[in-house]
Structure formats: structure tokens, C-alpha cells
């Protein structure tokens, strides 16, 4: 659920703001509105203080402790610790208190330090100077003193201190340029507009005289949405209301560019600004590994509780006879005796829980956390995923999903900018069926009209001529391209292009830039937008001026944009360009047939096509349109919807002019990547907003569809002829027949499905008869399952997310990955299990919202096949090994209870109990989980089929888990009974010849425990060593180092009488044990026996049923024999590849 909303609500209610309303009214300059207007309600808003810190000096300790103990691992430790403090338990409270204290302290110090840094950063932000207009003068004040309603003056290159509404700028047209690099990473300059009525206030005094209020919505995190209204009060007149939109809102964090200074009024301050609202963390994604980990944990919790229960019950059964309960040599204390038996039983149960609590590998959470955090650095460090052009490598936004990269079954990819370069090039245009190709123009020289255009079709009549000119003008006018003049760039460059005013175009859409540049090559140059007039240099080098009246912005639902202009001749013209499907239905005249044919042909070649149409407006029409637009724009509620309606009414009765074709080249190695993903067993779906033919062509080019692929179509075109029902059943029959046949011949056919957005929404539409809709969904999924590739075209952003959701919820619950580069992919990126953003040309929104961001589509291959595979292998081993080593650790203690009268006598010494998970066995597995490479990176890249080996969480399934647990139980039995027979059957004694002469000494229970523990530590470490396939010098160092550490620690621990310790039970125990021959012999024997079954299992499985990975392992070493120079520290990536 959305916590930010909840938090807002709570904070509001707590603050006692009973006049909580859906919109806020801001009084510019804190001036009351004139009488007669709404009552002046002074509202309280937070000041502009940014508080990113979490703690203050006073609440740090309690709040931090509370936060830390909310984590289940810490809480579990705390519970155990408290139980140990309260009741008499076998192990001292130190065993759990010390690690707990350590973890808590370290975390607290870390968080305290981070918070101190945050305090510092906050202070520097809050105290940075801001210019505020007060009573006609500019007053310098500190940022945090800013209040809603203050009029702020910002200069060039200053960053806005809060969310502001632009009132006026030093530029004449009331615009200002802003870059939002720090917000969304888009470096292009964006234009923001002042309301025409306030544009004129150029000085402090003027601004101060402004009397207006702003009504706007309450703060919400969407950066690109804002709805508001400004009411300007002039003496005597009625207030003027003007709509405010996102184009008037300057966001905190954005920087003013190319504008000398602006005046703006603060509307959202402090924690209300869109930037701070956006820093709330996204919803958490959990990986499949984490889910299985939790399932295993529950199993172990059950084991723990049942162990404790069994032991408690047996204890009381055994103690039934008083000889056992209280033999003469071992009396209870009086207090103990007086206790009620139920209380005694309960404390016994708790004591057993404490004794066995280590079976829940609490340290696993810490290790997993560290593994994920540190491991994700390898992704960011990978130079193969670094893009020179962009100057950036892969980015990891969350480290929680590393292993999920190795589990992907479905890949949903965007087309434009993801599969393709999004580097548009104008190829041709077609006016009424006549094709123009600008390549004929040389050197970008503007030649005379006739010769410059290579006409395929001839005979341009007068009528045609007129259309041609309109077409070119339409393309020059109907866009939102900005002209960036060279003067902002350094002067040297200007020197080169002497005289000729060079400029380049900037737009959020590369298509538009390509089109405008294409027009330039065809002779029509868009010069600039000046005073709401667009200037065009036409073929005859004349400047034509059009007054720009309205821009009907592009949106992905409408899939078109329009402008309304007034020509110098006073004609009102509406130019519209958009996708063919959205234009053709609105066309009333023009050579539709010819254009359509050309468009379809171009689309087949994989070109992006746009249709251009116009409508001539009479004055009446225009005024009506104006009215509709301003009505919609002024609306505070449902503005979007009303705008869409207005657009729909205005954009009709078109005359078709022609079509354009723009090429978007495939990204490098896109085809290779898709092929690898296919081989790796992933299903690749392309979800695009493009038209079907274009998308299909791209799919063929990127080898998503091969020549042999049989294409199934599920499109509007087909469903028009047949009912959806029939089509679906038809297709499923085809697919299923193939499947029944393919039992004989494997994969003779592969199918590709093409579906369009409209049909999809029909398939997914929940119809009143619920059974029917469910059926469609199921059939659709069934068809998809049998297709190797699916292409969804004409998709709205939300539909992309719907598709992802549909697949996610299907009965196999496959792991999905979505990759895209644009804002329209954000919804699917957030929806999929793993979201990958491409740092593309369409801004950084996708990359910001993704879990991982990569520069290019081709990097996906290494990301999944190499990093994903490695991380999965690593974490799977980490999880299984942790459970294994704790079974080995605790099960002997459980068995020992049967031999010590169920008295909770621990087998191991306190120090061993405490340090086993912390230091003796922690580092090797952490290191393994960071640098294990079971096969080389080259092999993984060369052979994508290896990915299938880890698919579907194969290393963490129940049988594997059971195997590890059984192995743990077996080893534990070997440790315990091995030692038991040595101690019980005969005297396990030593003649101690190493120490003293001819003395035969007896070994007690601590020696017994130490023997078991020594075997245990060595066995679990060797087990990991056996699993390690990649022995770097670090592995050697850590594995042998931790064994050595164990030995040294034991020698030291038993070597002296420890002061301040009330028991000396380990004194010389370890050394005495080592001085006895049989102890050595039995340690060697027990380790061998414990490792034997695992080795045999491994060898047998490898020989008899080898997996693809194992085959790759056994074939590769003979090819890529690496020198076993273990201690070579030098870099060696000069290794030749084979």
C-alpha cells in the first residue's frame, strides 16, 4: 500500500489541520484578496526546511533501537537474549547478547554517521541564500525561511529552492529555460511559460503590486502533472482566471538556464515539493530466492519448535523416577524445587529453544544482505557494460534482485529506443502519393525547389503543388521542437560557421527532430519561435511567419499532435500529424488510398511512419475551438479528460496531405542478444506503441521472428471479420495441434503471435459473464505459452503493464523482466519482477524507476546470462549452505540431550557457540557468494543454453533443500556418534606422551564437545571447498585462513586462565585433545566419512546425469587451462579467448 499517502494523512490529522481541502489557495505576496472574493483563510503550510535526517540528538537512541528491532533477525536475537536473562538457560546471555550488541552498535554508528551527514547536507541546503521580494525590494534570506506565497527571484544558473509558479521572466515572451538534470536526468532545456497576464511584471516593484491568488491541487509526487488556476485581481475589474499547468511550474532542484532572472511565487515548500515527495522509496520487490528462503526458514522454525517440544516431553518422561530427577549427588536448589511443575516445564521448553536457537541461521540474513550489497558492485564495475558514447556503465538501483536476473522466463521489451537506436533519420515523405527522397540533396545546400526534390511520380499539378507546400509547412509548424542557437555554445564553434546562423534542434521526441531536419533538407527551414510567431524560411529564401495559437500536445493515447496557426494572410489552419490509425479515421478528403499504400509499404520495411493532415478553420470554428480548449484548461478537476474530449472535437474533418517515413536503426547486436535470450529459454515479447507492420519488420530484423516462424495474428483486422471468440479458438487449435504433433518431431514449427492493443483490451475485458472472460484469458495465455515470440503493438503504456501483470499472474508464476527506455515503459518496469531501464535519449525516467539501468540493449545479455547466472548460483549455495552448516552445528547438541538426561547441557563451549556463525564459518561462504564462478564468463556468453540449468529456481527447490538438510543430518550423526563410540565403547584416553611422560589422562565432556566441534568446523569448511570451482588466491586465503583462525583461537582460548571469567572449563582442553593420537585419527576419519557421500553423489551425478553446466565445466578446463598461479595478483585480462 502507499505509505506516503497514509503518512500525509496522518501528519495532517496530527497537525490538527481540520480545514483539510483538496486544493490549496496561495496568496501571492501574502496579500489578502479584495473583499467580495473568497474569505481569506490563512493556511498553514510547512516552511521550506528540508528534513532528510531521521533522528535528532534526543530521539536517536530510542528511535534507532526501535527501528533496528523491527527487523526480525534482531528481534529474534533480542527475544533469545531476554529469555536467557530471565530464566536459567544452558548458554550464557553473552552468546546472543554479544553478537546482538555488536550488530546493533555497528548499525547504530553507521546510521548515526549517515544521519549526521544528512543533517549537514540539510543545513547547507536550508541555509543557502534566496532572494525574496518583500515590499518592493529584494531581500536576501535563507532558504528554510521561505513560505508559501513568497515571491522569489531566481537568477541564471540558480537552483530553485522550492516549487514555484513562474510569474515573469527577463525574456520578453515570458518564457524561461530550465534544465531538470538533477531531477530526471534529462539534460535538454525545457521551456516554461508565464501566464500572459503576469508576464509584464518585470521589476520588484511591479511584481509586488501584483494582486492575485493561486488555487492549485495539494502536492502530489508526479513530476509532470500539475493543475492550478491563477486569479488576478485588478482594481474595479472582475478577477481574471488563468489556467496553470505543468508548463508553469518550476520544480525544486531544477536549474534556471539562458534566462537572466525570473520572478516566481512559491506554492509548495519543504517536504511538500515534488522532489521530496519523489524520494519516497518505491514498492519493494522480493526475489524468488527470498521467498524460498523464507519457506525454508519456516520449516526450520517448525523443526526447532518440535525439537524443543520433543526434548521437553522426553525430559519429563525420563524424570518420572526420582532417581533420575534428583539423584543424591545432584539435588535441586530449594527455590527450584518449590516451582510449579508447569512453570518448570515451560522454562525447560524455553531453555531448549535457546539451546537450539542457532538452527535458525540468523547470521544468514546479515550475510545475504552483505552479499547482495557488495555483489551488486560487480555489475556497476563491469566494463563490458560500459558505454563509451554515453560515458556510463550499468547502474544498480536496488541490490535486492541480483539473483532474480538469473531466473527470468519472460522478457518484455520496448521497441523504440530499446531494440532500436532511437536515432531517427528522415527517409522519405509522400505527398498525395508522390514520393520525395531528400538524399538527392547534396551537402545540405539549399538548392532550388525543382531540382532538389527527386520525384518518383511525376506530373505535379497545381492542386498538387498547393498540397506539397502545405505539407512542408505542416511539418515545419506542427511540432514542439526548440531551436538552440549556437551563441550559447562556445565562441570558437561560432567562428567556424561564420555568417551562417547555425542552430540545432532540441526536442523530447527524436522523430520530430528528424522530421524538421528532413524538411530543412527539402528546403523548408524552421527558424525560431519568436513572440508566438513561428518563422519558416521557405524554398525561395523568404521568411514566412505564422502565429502559433494553440498546441494540442502529443499524448500516447491519442497518438497525434496538432497546432493551430494563423498565417500571415489571416487564415486559421490546424495541422495535425500522428499515427496512421489515428489520422485516417478523421480524414474526409485527400488521396487516402495512395498514401495508405505507401505507408503500409514503408511500415513493412521497418520505417516509422506518420501521417500529416490539415484542416482549414473558419473564424467561427476557431473561436469555438478556443473556447473548448480554454474551458478544459481551466477546469480544476478531470482536466485531462476534458482536454482529451476537446481535442477529439477539434481534430476532425481533416484533409490528408501525406505521410513521412523515418528510419530507426536497430541497436547494435540487438539480434544477437535476442537470439541468445531465446536460446537461454526465455520468451521475448515486444511491446510497442508502434504500428503493427513497423513493429513486425523490426521483429524480423532482430531475429525475434525468423523466416520459418509461423505468424499468428490476433488483430483488430481479423476480429472485424470473425468474432474474437472464433479467432481465439482457431488459433489455440492451430497451436495445440502442433503441440500434439511435435511430440514426434521436436520444434518443427515455432509460432509468433502478433496482437494489437485494441484486441488485447477486448481479450482482457472483464465481461459480465465472468466465466467467459476467464476463458478468453486462459485461451490467450495458452496460445502465448506456445509461441516463442509475441509482438504486441499499438500498446498504451498501461496496457504494457497489464500484459506483464497477466503473465505474472498466470498459473506458473513465471519471473518477468521488463526493459525499456522511455516514460511509457515505466509502468511495465515497475510491474515486472525485474525492471531494467535503458539510459536512452528519451530522458531518464525509465532508468530512474528501474531496478537496474544499462546503457544499451545488448548489455542485457551479459546482465542475464552472466551476472544473473552467477548471482543465482551464488545465493542459492549461500542459502543452502547456511541451513546445512547450522544443522550440522545444532543436531549433535540435540542428540547429546539423550545422553545427558535432557538437562540442556550444551555440547560446545560458549565461545564456540557464539563464534561459530560469526567468525569460524562466515567468511568463506561470504567470499564464495561473492566471487564463485562455476564456469567462465566466456562459456556462459557463448552457450546461452546454460541459463536453462538454473531456470525455475532449480537450485532452491524442495528436493535440493531436502538433500542438503539430509546431508546436514547425516554429517551431524557422524560427528556425534563417531565421538560417542570413541568415548563410550572404551576409554578415549591419551597417553599424553607429547605433553608429559607416560601419563594417561581422562577426557571429559568439554573435550568431547571440542572434538565434535573441530570435526564440524573442518567438515563444513571442506564441504564449501569441494563446492568451490574457482579458487583464486582470496579463496585460498579465506578458507585456509579461517581454519587456521579456528585453531589459533582454540589454542589461545584454552591456553591461559582467563581472568574475569567464572569458569575455566576449556583450559588446555584443545591442546590435550591434539596431543592424543586417537583424536587426530578420529578427526581425520570423521571428516572423510562426512564428506564421502557428497563427493560420491557429485561424481555420480556428473558422470551419469550431467547437466549442461557440468558438461561445459568438464569440456572447458581442457581448453582454457589457466595457469594455477594462485598468488598472481596482477591483472590478467589479456587471456586469449578461444
Amino acid at each position: 500500500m502507499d505509505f506516503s499517502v497514509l503518512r500525509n494523512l496522518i501528519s495532517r490529522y496530527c497537525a490538527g489541520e481540520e480545514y483539510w481541502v483538496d486544493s490549496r489557495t496561495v496568496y501571492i505576496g501574502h496579500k489578502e484578496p479584495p473583499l467580495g472574493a473568497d474569505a481569506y483563510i490563512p493556511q498553514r503550510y510547512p516552511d521550506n526546511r528540508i528534513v532528510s535526517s531521521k533522528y535528532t540528538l534526543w530521539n536517536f537512541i530510542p528511535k534507532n533501537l526501535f527501528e533496528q528491532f523491527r527487523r526480525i533477525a534482531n528481534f529474534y536475537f533480542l527475544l533469545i537474549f531476554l529469555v536467557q536473562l530471565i530464566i536459567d538457560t544452558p548458554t550464557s546471555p553473552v552468546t546472543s547478547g554479544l553478537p546482538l550488541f555488536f550488530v546493533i552498535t555497528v548499525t547504530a554508528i553507521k546510521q548515526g554517521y549517515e544521519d549526521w551527514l544528512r543533517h549537514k547536507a540539510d543545513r547547507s541546503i536550508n541555509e543557502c541564500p534566496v532572494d525574496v521580494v518583500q515590499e518592493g525590494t529584494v531581500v536576501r534570506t535563507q532558504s528554510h525561511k521561505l513560505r508559501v506565497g513568497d515571491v522569489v527571484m531566481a537568477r541564471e544558473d540558480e537552483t530553485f529552492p522550492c516549487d514555484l509558479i513562474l510569474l515573469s521572466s527577463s525574456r520578453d515572451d515570458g518564457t524561461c529555460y530550465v534544465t531538470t538534470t538533477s531531477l530526471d536526468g534529462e539534460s535538454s532545456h525545457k521551456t516554461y511559460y508565464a501566464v500572459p497576464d503576469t508576464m509584464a511584471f518585470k521589476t520588484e516593484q511591479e511584481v509586488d503590486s501584483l494582486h492575485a491568488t493561486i488555487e492549485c491541487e495539494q502536492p502530489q509526487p508526479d513530476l509532470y502533472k500539475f493543475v492550478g488556476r491563477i486569479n488576478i485581481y485588478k482594481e474595479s475589474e472582475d478577477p481574471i482566471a488563468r489556467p496553470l499547468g505543468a508548463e508553469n511550474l518550476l520544480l525544486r532542484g531544477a536549474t534556471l538556464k539562458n534566462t537572466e532572472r525570473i520572478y516566481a511565487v512559491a506554492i509548495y515548500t519543504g517536504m511538500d515539493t515534488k522532489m521530496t515527495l519523489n524520494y519516497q522509496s518505491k514498492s519493494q520487490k522480493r526475489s524468488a530466492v527470498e521467498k524460498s528462503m523464507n519457506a525454508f526458514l519456516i520449516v526450520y522454525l517448525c523443526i526447532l519448535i518440535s525439537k524443543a517440544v520433543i526434548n521437553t516431553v522426553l525430559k519429563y518422561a525420563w524424570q518420572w523416577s526420582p532417581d533420575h530427577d534428583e539423584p543424591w549427588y545432584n539435588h535441586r536448589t530449594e527455590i527450584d524445587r518449590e516451582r510449579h511443575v508447569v512453570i518448570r516445564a515451560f522454562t525447560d521448553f524455553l531453555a531448549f529453544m535457546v539451546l537450539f536457537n542457532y538452527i535458525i541461521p540468523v547470521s544468514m540474513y546479515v550475510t545475504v544482505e552483505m552479499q547482495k550489497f557488495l555483489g551488486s558492485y560487480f555489475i556497476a564495475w563491469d566494463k563490458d557494460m560500459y558505454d563509451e558514447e554515453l560515458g556510463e556503465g550499468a547502474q544498480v538501483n536496488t541490490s535486492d534482485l541480483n539473483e532474480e536476473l538469473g531466473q527470468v522466463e519472460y522478457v518484455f521489451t520496448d521497441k523504440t529506443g530499446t531494440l532500436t537506436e532511437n536515432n531517427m533519420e528522415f527517409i522519405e515523405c509522400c505527398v498525395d502519393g508522390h514520393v520525395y527522397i531528400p538524399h538527392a540533396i547534396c551537402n545540405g545546400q539549399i538548392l532550388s525547389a525543382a531540382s532538389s526534390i527527386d520525384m518518383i511520380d511525376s506530373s505535379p499539378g497545381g492542386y498538387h503543388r498547393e498540397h506539397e507546400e502545405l505539407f512542408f509547412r505542416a511539418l515545419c509548424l506542427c511540432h514542439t521542437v526548440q531551436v538552440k542557437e549556437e551563441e550559447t555554445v562556445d565562441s570558437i564553434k561560432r567562428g567556424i560557421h561564420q555568417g551562417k546562423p547555425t542552430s540545432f534542434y532540441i526536442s523530447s521526441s527524436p522523430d520530430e527532430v528528424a522530421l524538421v531536419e528532413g524538411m530543412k533538407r527539402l528546403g523548408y527551414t524552421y527558424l525560431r519561435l519568436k513572440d508566438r510567431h513561428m518563422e519558416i524560411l521557405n524554398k525561395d529564401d523568404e521568411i514566412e511567419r505564422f502565429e502559433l495559437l494553440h498546441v494540442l500536445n502529443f499524448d500516447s493515447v491519442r497518438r497525434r499532435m496538432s497546432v493551430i496557426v494563423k498565417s500571415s494572410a489571416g487564415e486559421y489552419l490546424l495541422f495535425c500529424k500522428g499515427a496512421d490509425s489515428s489520422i485516417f479515421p478523421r480524414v474526409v478528403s485527400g488521396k487516402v488510398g495512395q498514401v495508405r499504400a505507401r505507408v503500409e509499404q514503408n511500415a513493412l520495411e521497418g520505417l516509422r511512419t506518420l501521417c500529416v493532415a490539415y484542416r482549414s478553420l473558419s473564424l467561427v470554428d476557431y473561436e469555438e475551438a478556443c473556447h473548448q480548449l480554454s474551458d478544459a484548461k481551466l477546469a480544476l478537476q478531470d482536466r485531462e479528460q476534458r482536454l482529451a474530449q476537446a481535442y477529439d472535437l477539434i481534430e476532425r474533418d481533416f484533409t490528408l496531405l501525406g505521410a513521412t517515413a523515418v528510419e530507426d536503426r536497430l541497436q547494435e547486436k540487438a539480434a544477437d542478444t535476442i537470439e541468445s535470450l531465446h536460446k537461454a529459454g526465455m520468451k521475448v515479447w515486444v511491446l510497442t506503441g508502434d504500428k503493427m507492420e513497423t513493429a513486425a519488420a523490426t521483429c524480423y530484423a532482430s531475429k525475434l521472428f525468423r523466416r520459418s516462424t509461423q505468424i499468428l495474428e490476433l488483430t483488430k483486422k481479423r476480429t472485424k471479420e470473425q468474432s474474437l471468440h472464433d479467432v481465439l479458438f482457431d488459433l489455440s487449435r492451430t497451436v495445440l495441434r502442433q503441440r500434439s504433433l511435435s511430440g514426434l518431431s521436436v520444434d518443427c514449427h515455432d509460432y509468433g503471435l502478433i496482437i494489437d492493443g485494441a484486441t488485447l483490451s477486448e481479450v482482457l475485458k472483464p465481461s459480465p459473464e465472468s466465466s467467459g472472460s476467464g476463458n478468453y484469458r486462459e485461451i490467450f495465455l495458452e496460445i502465448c505459452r506456445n509461441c516463442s515470440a509475441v509482438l504486441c503493438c499499438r500498446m498504451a503504456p498501461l496496457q504494457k503493464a497489464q500484459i506483464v501483470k497477466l503473465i505474472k499472474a498466470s498459473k506458473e508464476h513465471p519471473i518477468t523482466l521488463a526493459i525499456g527506455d522511455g516514460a511509457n515503459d515505466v509502468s511495465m518496469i515497475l510491474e515486472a519482477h525485474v525492471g531494467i531501464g535503458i539510459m536512452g535519449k528519451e530522458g531518464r525516467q525509465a532508468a530512474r524507476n528501474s531496478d537496474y539501468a544499462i546503457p544499451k540493449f545488448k548489455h542485457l545479455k551479459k546482465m542475464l546470462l552472466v551476472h544473473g547466472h552467477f548471482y543465482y548460483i551464488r545465493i542459492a549455495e549461500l542459502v543452502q549452505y547456511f541451513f546445512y552448516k547450522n544443522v550440522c552445528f545444532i543436531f549433535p547438541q540435540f542428540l547429546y540431550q539423550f545422553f545427558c538426561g535432557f538437562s540442556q547441557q550444551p555440547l560446545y563451549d560458549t565461545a564456540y557457540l557464539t563464534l561459530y556463525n560469526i567468525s569460524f564459518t562466515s567468511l568463506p561462504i561470504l567470499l564464495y557468494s561473492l566471487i564463485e564462478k562455476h564456469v567462465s564468463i566466456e562459456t556462459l556468453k557463448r552457450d546461452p543454453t546454460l541459463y536453462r540449468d538454473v531456470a525455475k529456481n532449480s537450485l532452491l527447490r524442495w528436493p535440493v533443500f531436502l538433500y542438503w538438510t539430509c546431508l546436514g543430518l547425516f554429517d551431524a550423526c557422524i560427528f556425534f556418534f563417531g565421538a560417542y563410540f570413541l568415548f563410550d565403547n572404551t576409554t578415549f584416553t591419551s597417553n599424553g606422551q607429547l605433553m608429559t611422560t607416560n601419563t594417561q589422562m581422562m577426557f571429559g565432556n568439554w573435550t568431547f564437545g571440542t572434538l565434535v566441534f573441530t570435526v564440524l568446523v573442518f567438515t563444513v569448511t571442506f564441504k564449501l571447498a569441494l563446492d568451490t570451482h574457482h579458487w583464486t588466491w582470496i579463496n585460498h586465503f579465506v578458507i585456509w585462513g579461517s581454519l587456521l583462525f579456528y585453531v589459533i583461537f582454540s589454542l589461545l582460548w584454552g591456553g591461559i586462565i582467563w581472568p574475569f571469567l567464572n569458569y575455566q572449563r576449556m583450559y588446555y582442553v584443545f591442546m590435550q585433545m591434539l596431543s592424543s593420537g586417537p583424536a587426530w585419527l578420529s578427526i581425520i576419519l570423521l571428516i572423510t566419512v562426512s564428506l564421502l557421500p557428497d563427493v560420491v553423489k557429485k561424481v555420480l551425478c556428473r558422470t551419469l546425469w550431467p547437466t549442461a553446466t557440468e558438461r561445459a565445466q568438464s569440456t572447458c578446463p581442457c581448453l582454457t587451462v589457466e595457469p594455477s598461479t594462485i598468488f598472481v595478483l596482477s591483472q590478467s585480462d589479456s587471456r586469449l579467448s578461444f
Partner: protein
Amino acid sequence: MASSYNAKEEDGHVAVPGGGTIQNKKPDNTAFKQQRLPAWQPILTAGTVLPAFFVIGLIFIPIGIGLYVTSNNIKEFEIDYTGTDMSSPCFNCSQSFSWNSTRPCTCALPFSLEQPFESNVFMYYGLSNFYQNHRRYVKSRDDSQLNGDTTSLMNPSKECEPYARNEKMPIAPCGAIANSMFNDTLDLYYIDPNGTRIQIPLMKKGIAWWTDKHVKFRNPGGNPNLTSAFQGTTKPINWRKPVYELDTDAENNGFINEDFIVWMRTAALPTFRKLYRIIQKKNNMTPTLPRGNYTLEVTYNYPVRSFEGRKRVILSTISWMGGKNPFLGIAYITVGSVCFFLGVVLLIIHHKYGSRNNTADIPN
């Protein structure tokens, strides 16, 4: 449940490793960062494991045989003197036991050795069903008191309860372990063929760990006069004599009495034996214990009937590998054979399947 553990979540902001901080920076091309550290890449295949199995088999079997033979050469004699049987000489003593009896009950058990015991003979007492490893029991001691700390001597640790004080007087040594110290006296007589009883000299020193005797256990206060050193303390309830009268030898008295130290090392399992005395070999000519008849004289002080325990005396020689221990030898032989057998099985499998795999898998 445990799933809610997430450091970043609680920190309130997402850690972005390598994110914004190292933008516009090319990753270092080091072997570590590119995960290309030179490495040894062993793989457990039948081919590589085979020799290891044979080697293990070949090493373990001889060791096992050696151990087994050694263990078999060790002579061991065990006699149970609990006295639960009517026929047993100690029956009366075991029946008429009372803590307060001033006159010790003695009994004599005759036995004969079929074979002579050649080298040093170790004499053990063994107890069964005695839970020295019970938690309440194990911790019922005060190591600092035993280390000669005078404060602890007067104020025994709480762990010793309910054996810490007796009528307000601190008990030295305190605790259940000390209180239940084994106090039977065992004497061994050799019956000459001509009928005379010869007492066999039993050495009571050198039976405890050297470090225990010299470091871990110390008498309080460096005072040579133990009686005054233990002034103000009382003996454990079940003891007949105070701790400073355990032996007449000053080097083996008080806390550093070796019988006491041996007893204080709690056994791992409920059936255990502890070293009692050593019979040293006199010279090379005569065996330490020649074959013939013997009598074990027991001063029966230690009650075990109440918890159905058994008391035994064991006479044993030892070897380089300790006492009689057939288990280790058998285990070695078994494991060695299993390894050898597995080696053979793997060899067959390797020949049948291994070659097929290897030829089939060379990538084209």
C-alpha cells in the same frame, strides 16, 4: 516473517551502489573488478576422484589394521563390584549403606588373570548411569575457588547451590561435583601360588592433567599449612574428611589432590571410567601383573544402588594409541574398504559412461 529484514528499507533511502556517485567514470579494468582473477578450477569428476578414493582406501586400511591389532594386544580386565547380586561379596555392603556409618564396610573380590599384563597397568573405576554431564551438575563448581582464590573460598559462587554453604559455613570445595566425589578405596593383592597375599603398590600421582594439577587447581593462600588455609570453611556434606585431609602428602592434598582433580573433570557420557591408580612396571624381567589369582579389596563407601548405577574396576595396559579401542580400527578398515569399493565402482562407471560424455560434448 523474517522476510521483513531489510536494512535499506528501514534506513529510509535506497543504497545505490555504484549509482550516481561514479557516473561518467569508466570502471577500472582490474582483474578483481572484472571478476577475472586467475584461478585454479578443480572439478570433481570420476577421473579425478578415482585416484583419491584408491589412495584413501590404501592408506586407511593399513592404519585400520594397525589400530585393530594394537587395540587387540591391549589387555583389559574388568570386574563389577556393585554388589546387587546375592552372590556378590559386596552385597552386604551395598545393602547396608548409610551416610552416617562411622565404620567403613569392606569387601574382597577374588579374581584371576589368565594372561600376564606386561607393561604399565592402569587401574580405573567405572560408573554407569551416573549423569556427570547433567547440566545442573556440570556447572555446580567454582573454578576460582579451586584456583585458590581466597574470596571465592569464603563466598562460593551461586552456581554451587545447593552445595555452597552448610549451616552458614562456606563449603570448600563447593558444588555438587565435589560433594559427590568418588570415595571407595580400592586395593589390589596378588595371591602367590604359595598362598601369601602381596599388596601391589599403586601409584596415585600422575593421574591428572599436568596443567590441571599445576595451574588450574591451587590451594588457597600459599599457606603450607592447609588446615589454617581452609579455616572458616566446612567439608562437603557427603565427605567424611575435610579437603585438607585427603592425603598425607602435601603435594597431593587439598585442591591439588589428583583423585579430586580427576573427579572434577566431568565425564561426557553417563557411563564412564576414570583413572584411579597406575601400577608401574618394576623391571623388564617380571610382568607388572603376572597371571594368577588376585584379590580386590574394596572399602565400600559410594552408594549407587539408589540410581541403579554400577561400579566397576578395570585393569588395562595401554599402547601408543591409548586404551583398548577396537572401534577406531574397525572404522578405519570399513571406511578404507568402502572407499576402495567406491573407487572400483567409479572406475567401471567412468569407463562405461565417462568416455561417452566427453566425446559427445566437445562443442562444435
